[in-house]
């Protein structure tokens, strides 16, 4: 048990050691000739503009929420589908109710205009 953890510890030390050595050695040995072009921020060949913290439309959030509901629904249906062979009618009814509730939620979101891009 302890030996297993020892390996992890050794790898951890090596993985911290090697990159830091590479960075430090490069920093010491490399030539340093800064100029304005080199120091400027580089983003895909285009000059950056504005702040990096910009405002996003709140509707992304709504979309994400609606998406999440159905994402989770899919995950919940996987174990149900795997156990399909041993199921009784009760489990099928349960799953149908589950999906119906989520469908109701979709209808709700739709009618409330959550799916419209304003």
């Amino acid at each position: 048990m302890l030996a297993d953890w020892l390996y992890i510890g050794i790898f951890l030390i090596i993985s911290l050691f090697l990159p830091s050595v590479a960075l430090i050695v490069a920093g010491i040995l490399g030539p340093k000739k800064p100029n304005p072009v080199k120091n400027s921020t580089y983003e895909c060949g285009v000059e950056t503009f504005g702040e990096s913290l910009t405002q996003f439309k709140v509707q992304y959030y709504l979309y994400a929420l609606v998406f999440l509901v159905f994402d989770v629904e899919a995950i919940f249906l996987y174990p149900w589908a795997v156990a399909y062979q041993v199921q009784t009618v009760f489990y099928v009814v349960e799953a149908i109710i589950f999906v119906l509730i989520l469908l109701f939620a979709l209808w709700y979101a739709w009618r409330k205009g959550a799916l419209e891009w304003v």
Partner: protein
Amino acid sequence: MTADFATMLSAVFPEIGLVVLMVVVLGLDLLWRDERVRRLGWITAAGCLFLVVLSLVFALPPAEPLLIWGGMLRLDAAGFVFRIVFLLGAALTALFSLGQDDLQKHGEYYGLMLVSTLGMSLMASAADLIMLYLAIELTSIPLYVLAGFRFRDDKSVEAGIKYLLFGAMTSAVMLYGLSLLYGFSGTTQIAELAEQIDRHSVPVSLLVISLVLVLVGFGFKVSAVPFHFWAPDVYEGAPTPVAGYLSTASKAAGFAVLMRVILTGFWAVTPIWMDLIAGLAIVSMTVGNLLALTQTNIKRLLAYSSIAQAGYILVGVAAGTSFGMSGAVYYLMAYLLTNLVAFGVVSVVGQRVGSDDLSAYAGLSRRAPAVALILLISMLSLGGIPPFAGFVGKVLVFAAAVEAGRWWLALIGVINSIVALYYYLIVLKSAYLLRSEDEQKPLQLMAGWRVALLVCVTGVLVLGVVIAPWFEWAGKAGWALSIY
């Protein structure tokens, strides 16, 4: 004892009914989208009352507590009594919300209230730590939204955010405590916790750490000092019916889980939790009452009063006996009706006068004698004056404390009740003695408000005069909580 499928299904009929009712309310809101949505309050209230009938018919608890749904829920008198308390609370709150267009015109308002009621109902009958935690979250999350429901009103938003931050924080701490409890015992079944902890001979110090962490979460829910800081701000900012709901049903749910978990999970450290709860009771009563003395906003005053009331109920819990639990349950029933009617009057006056200051109550006895009389009854009941419900509740919890040999706790409680009378009477003084310029203008009451106020006041009187049948149920609930 295991149950067959039909019993299990009929035991959760009221919960299924709550989901169906929520779907109906939200669906009607989507279909109507016009003036007719104002009827949703009535539909919610009627639906909740129907569910009360449904639980009386189908979900009556058996003589022996029964574990159902794979040990997730426990069918017993405690869960039953609390469920009826929550359903009544939701119905009355829905009626008090009528006439407030920023609330009643949104189907979500009633939908969220029903979801939170569902959560409370599951909280009260949860028999598994995971179920318990899920139910607590199911209760809390809609309540965070409801507290901030007036999203154009800064105070309401502040209330919502404050409640969310406090709730999330204490919930995390409580979850840590519950996870420790699971770690000690290797089971999430509340009924097996005591036995497993005994078998693994868990050190007392570790159990006490877990106890303190769990008490943080429950203390927040019941707004006991020192976890009470959210209460005045949230009650003041939240829409008044929501504040009433928070201070009664949500608090009752907190007490239900508190009693269930500490009685069995912390069986091994019973004397320690008794002392801790007694300490919480003393500081809650004292701090709540002293801070209430200087309030001029009635919602803040009632918030501090509800903190003090949580202290009185904790006196019953601190007794640790079956009688103490029964007293606490009775107190909670009485408190639900009394405080709901108090917040109901505040809601009515707030709507018609447009202010929650004590000065708004000047001349109330001339403008609306019936409302003033109802306020009088609720304030005297909160203060513990016979023949109202609050008096019986206080007698029971103090008697339980004396019986358990904690007479000093009862003594502090009685002294606090006398202090509390001062600020309850201040409210009545504004209503009855102070004059105002608007005395000639009578207050117009909506039909829904009249019904709700009348039901509450009748309940306060009935619980205060005809004690035996209700105490029998409270006794059964207390008994069911204390046996495992």
